[in-house]
C-alpha cells in the first residue's frame, strides 16, 4: 500500500476560496456572486480585491442563478457561492431553465455539502445534490476531496466552457494531494494499485478509502484505490480497467445511495462488465445534528465501513 501523508488538515471550502482569489488576479472575466455567505464560502478575498466583479445578492438564491446566467451572455464567467442545499434543491428550476437548458457558462460552487456540515442538522445537510445535478443534460459534476484538489478544480472549471457543479465541504480534512496539481475534469486519479478489490471514492470519503486500504493491507488484501473527483462525465475507462483487474468494487461517497456516485459506477459496470459492487453511502435518509465524526460513524461513512464493504465485495466474486 502506497503511503499517503499530510502535514495539515484544511477545509475544502478554503481551497475554493484560494482558487477563486487566484482566478480574480489572472482572469478579468471571472465574476463572483454570493447569497449572504461570503465568509462561509471563503469568498472574502476575491470580494475585497475585485469589488466591481463581486455581487452580494442577499438571501435570494433564485435571483443569483438568473443573474449568473445573464452575466455569461456578455462573456463573463460567473461563480456562484452558497451552501450545497441552496445551490441545488432550492433553485433547481432556475438552474434547469436559465443555466443548463440555456447552455450558460455558470460555475455553481457549493459548500457545506453532506453530513459533515454537522451541528446545523438535516435542513442544511443535502445528500441529494449530486443526483439532482447529474440528471441535468450538459452539467458537469465535481466533488473534490481536499484543499489542494478543490483549489485546482476551481481553477480548472474556469477554463471549461459549460455549466459546472463544484461540490465541497465545511470541515478540516487531511490535505494530502499535491500542491499546484493539474486538475483534469473527467479523469479519475489512481491512488493505489491493487488486485483484490477496487475502492472508488469521491469527496471526503477519499481519505477514508486510503485509511481503509491500509487496514485491508494489514489483512493481506491489496486494494486498488481510485479518487474519482468527477462524477459526470464519469471516467468509464478507469472504472472498467480496474474492475477487470480486481473483479469487485466498493463505491464511497457522502451522499444518498440513490442518485450518487455509486449509481453512476453501477451503470458503467452493468453496461459493460457486470461486477459485484458494494455501496458506501447514506441509505435514503436525512441527516441530523452532531459532530462530523459522529455523523460519519452513525451513517456508516468511514474507513471501517469501507473495510467491511470491501470484504463483502471480495466474498461475492
Amino acid at each position: 500500500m502506497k503511503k499517503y501523508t499530510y502535514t495539515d488538515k484544511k477545509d475544502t471550502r478554503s481551497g475554493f476560496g484560494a482558487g477563486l482569489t487566484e482566478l480574480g488576479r489572472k482572469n478579468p472575466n471571472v465574476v463572483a456572486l454570493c447569497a449572504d455567505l461570503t465568509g462561509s464560502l471563503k469568498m472574502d478575498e476575491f470580494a475585497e480585491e475585485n469589488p466591481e466583479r463581486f455581487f452580494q445578492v442577499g438571501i435570494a438564491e433564485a435571483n443569483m442563478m438568473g443573474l449568473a446566467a445573464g452575466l455569461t451572455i456578455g462573456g463573463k464567467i460567473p461563480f456562484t457561492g452558497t451552501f450545497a442545499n441552496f445551490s441545488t434543491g432550492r433553485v433547481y428550476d432556475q438552474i434547469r431553465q436559465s443555466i443548463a437548458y440555456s447552455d450558460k457558462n455558470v460555475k455553481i460552487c457549493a459548500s457545506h455539502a453532506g453530513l459533515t456540515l454537522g451541528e446545523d442538522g438535516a435542513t442544511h445537510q443535502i445528500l441529494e445534490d449530486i443526483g439532482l445535478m447529474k440528471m441535468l443534460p450538459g452539467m458537469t459534476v465535481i466533488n473534490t476531496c481536499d484543499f489542494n484538489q478543490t483549489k485546482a478544480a476551481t481553477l480548472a472549471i474556469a477554463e471549461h466552457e459549460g455549466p459546472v457543479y463544484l461540490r465541497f465541504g465545511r470541515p478540516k480534512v487531511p490535505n494530502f494531494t499535491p500542491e499546484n496539481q493539474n486538475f483534469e475534469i473527467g479523469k479519475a486519479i489512481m491512488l493505489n494499485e491493487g488486485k483484490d478489490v477496487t475502492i472508488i471514492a469521491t469527496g471526503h470519503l477519499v481519505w477514508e478509502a486510503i485509511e481503509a486500504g491500509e487496514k485491508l493491507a494489514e489483512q493481506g488484501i491489496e486494494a486498488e484505490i481510485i479518487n474519482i473527483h468527477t462524477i459526470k462525465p464519469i471516467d468509464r475507462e478507469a472504472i472498467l480497467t480496474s474492475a477487470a483487474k480486481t473483479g469487485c468494487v466498493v463505491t464511497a461517497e457522502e451522499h444518498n445511495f440513490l442518485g450518487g456516485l455509486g449509481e453512476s459506477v453501477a451503470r458503467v459496470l452493468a453496461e459493460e462488465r457486470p461486477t459485484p459492487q458494494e455501496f458506501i453511502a447514506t441509505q435514503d435518509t436525512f441527516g441530523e445534528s452532531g459532530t462530523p465524526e459522529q455523523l460519519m460513524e452513525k451513517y456508516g461513512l468511514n474507513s471501517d465501513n469501507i473495510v467491511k464493504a470491501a470484504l463483502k465485495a471480495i466474498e461475492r466474486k
Partner: protein
Amino acid sequence: MPDTQQLKDLTVQVRRDILRMVHAVNSGHPGGSLGCTEFFVAMYNEIMELKDEFHMDGKDEDVFILSNGHISPVFYSVLARRGYFPVEELKTFRKINSRLQGHPTTHEGLPGVRIASGSLGQGMSVALGIALGKKLNNDDHLVYSLHGDGELQEGQNWEAIMFAAGNKVDNIVATVDYNGQQIDGSTDNVLPLGDLKAKFESFGWDVMEIKEGNDLGAIIEGMKEAKSRTGKGKPVAVLLHTVMGNGVDFMMHTHAWHGKAPNDEQLATALEQNPETLGDY
C-alpha cells in the same frame, strides 16, 4: 426608420403570422401574443439599437429578454420579419425538429433568443445579469425585458426587483404586459397584484405607464421616454396597458384565448379582420 404605415402593415402581418402559426398546430398562446404585437413591432423596428446580425453576446447593441416565453408566436414572427431567420421557418412552429420550440430556447440555436423562458419569473434576473455585464464591459447600450403581469406572482421577480434598485442597475427597462388576465381568469380574481406602480416605486424603481399599450405611436413615445430615464441611478419599469387578443374582436377582453388556438372558421374570421399586407409565410 420605417414610416408609420410600414409599422402598421407589419403589425397586421405579425397578427396574421401569430394566428396562422397557432392554428397550424392547434396549440400555442395567441391572446398575449396579439396583445403585445404593437409593442414588439415598435421595439424591434423603432426603439432598440440592434446589429443586423445576431450575436449571442449582445455587445454594443440593445438586448431584449422575453420572460413570459409563452408569447413566443409574436416573438418569432417579429424576429423573422426583422431578418434574423427566414420567415418561411415560422411554419415549423411547435413541430418536431424545429428551432421554433413551444417556448423560446437557445438550445436549437434560433437567432434572436438569448435565454430559455417559459417557466415563469426568471427573465428579470437574467436581464439584470446582462445589464451588470454591460456595465462591466463599459457598454452603454440598454437591456429591455418583457414580463407578464400574472408572472409577477412568482417570487423570484421581487428578489430581482429588490436587487436592481439596491444596486442601482439603471441600464434596464423592464416592461410589464399589464392586461389583467391569466390562465384561470383575471389577475384580480386569481391573485390580485394590488397597486403595481406603487409596489415597484416602493422597491425604488422609476415607474411609468403607457395607457394605450396597443397604439404604436403611444408605445414609441412612451418607450423613448423610458429610455431617457435610464442612467439616472434607478431601474425603469413600464406598465404597458394592453388588451389581450388585440386586433381580433372575438379574442379581445377575455382570458379565453390565453392558450387556445382558433379553429378553421375562427381563423378565417380573424384573418378577414387582418388582411394580408407584407405577404404570408
